[in-house]
């Protein structure tokens, strides 16, 4: 077989690459057609101008639906159970947008757990009734008491530096802590 044929056969193999793998997903993009009616109604009542993206998630064997969108210059993620009942709303927030008091409480809570830490991601996590959560998005001045879900790099004397996800109360109490396994970076480093 000539080199020319080998080269073109390899090109064909490259383009066929995406079709051979099995699809096993933990989080997958889905169309609105498969989303529970109740969840679609909640989102449509928000009167969003930007497009929404729907995902189906499986966490520890439990399914849920998540709608992600941008509104009021903020990134929202609204989670529903399989019946379309709203579970929570998470709003991405920059560290500099936190109030001094919020920042102080969170930092003091985190420093009880770690010697040092670096922020990676901060989200406000709201739970409440449908109308409370609706107002939260449609009325920018509206707020309700909420927790914070944060991702950070934390250093402890036993474990060194590791990546964690924490759920913190507004006064900095750690309600949940779990280690995040970073995806291997060998393809980016070598």
């Amino acid at each position, binding site marked *: 077989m*000539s*080199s*020319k044929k*080998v*080269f073109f056969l*390899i*090109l064909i*193999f*490259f*383009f066929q*690459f*995406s*079709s051979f*793998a*099995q*699809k*096993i*997903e*933990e*989080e*997958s*993009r889905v169309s609105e057609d498969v989303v529970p009616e109740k969840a679609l109604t909640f989102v449509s009542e928000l009167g969003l101008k930007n497009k929404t993206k729907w*995902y189906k998630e499986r966490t520890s064997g439990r399914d849920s639906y998540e709608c*992600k969108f941008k509104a009021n210059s903020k*990134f929202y993620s609204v989670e529903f159970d399989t019946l379309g009942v709203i579970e929570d709303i998470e709003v*991405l927030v920059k560290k500099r947008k936190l109030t001094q008091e919020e920042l102080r409480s969170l930092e003091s809570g985190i420093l009880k757990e770690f010697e040092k830490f*670096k922020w*990676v*991601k901060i989200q406000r996590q709201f739970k409440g009734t449908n109308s409370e959560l609706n107002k939260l998005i449609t009325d920018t001045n509206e707020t309700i008491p909420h927790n914070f879900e944060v991702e950070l*790099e934390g*250093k402890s004397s036993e*474990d*060194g*530096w*590791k*990546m964690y996800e924490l759920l913190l109360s507004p006064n900095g109490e750690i309600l949940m802590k779990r280690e995040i*396994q*970073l*995806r*291997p*970076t*060998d*393809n*980016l*480093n*070598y």
Partner: protein
Amino acid sequence: MRLLLISGFLLISCTFVSAQNDRLYAGIFPELGVNVPLSSKLKFTAKIESQNGLFRNDATHNKDWSYYHNQTDLQSFLEFKLTTRIKTAIGYQYRIEDGDNSHRSIQQLTWLNQFRIFRLGSRLRADQKFSPSISPEYRLRYRASTDIPLQGDKLDDGEKYFLLSNEVIYALQEGESSIENRVVVGMGHFFNRTKKLELSFDYRTDPYFPDIDRHRLWCKISFYWNLKGFTK
């Protein structure tokens, strides 16, 4: 699929059009990387990569479609984790190249930035090449690379990702400088945390001083394998 098709088509067209009056080489480039963690902070990486040419167009080969072995590199690295996202490594490479085998020492610092929908890996590397027949070559290089999940915001087992990287390499040899640029576009399949396969196009141009006169296009097939090693 469409992403790989479009980017591959653009890259191949771009290579053949821009290289009409320049030297042009193309071929396949398989590589295998194996990682073994030695402790929670230390990791050993072994890598083999081989450039196998299938096409040459230069002063001595006129659009010649024939196989030739260009070079094979055997690399080893010892990596030290500074934080979860910053790592440093030292390495050694032995290059098998027709009649001109060489040694290379490598030092690198890598760091990772996480953005809302993708992550950006940066690699700053210095290397020094020594061979009995040629003067030492010193290089300083920076590569920015990203892998973006194609199904959802995070990459789960069995899913694919789009990969893109660009590397700029400054080289100094016998007082003469040159620059090389490497663009890589492709797709990866994330089997699980221990294995991934990438298929990509690697397009290299040099020497930029005074002008580009060499183009190389490699169809890269990379397999990364993370062994459990000696950690818990």
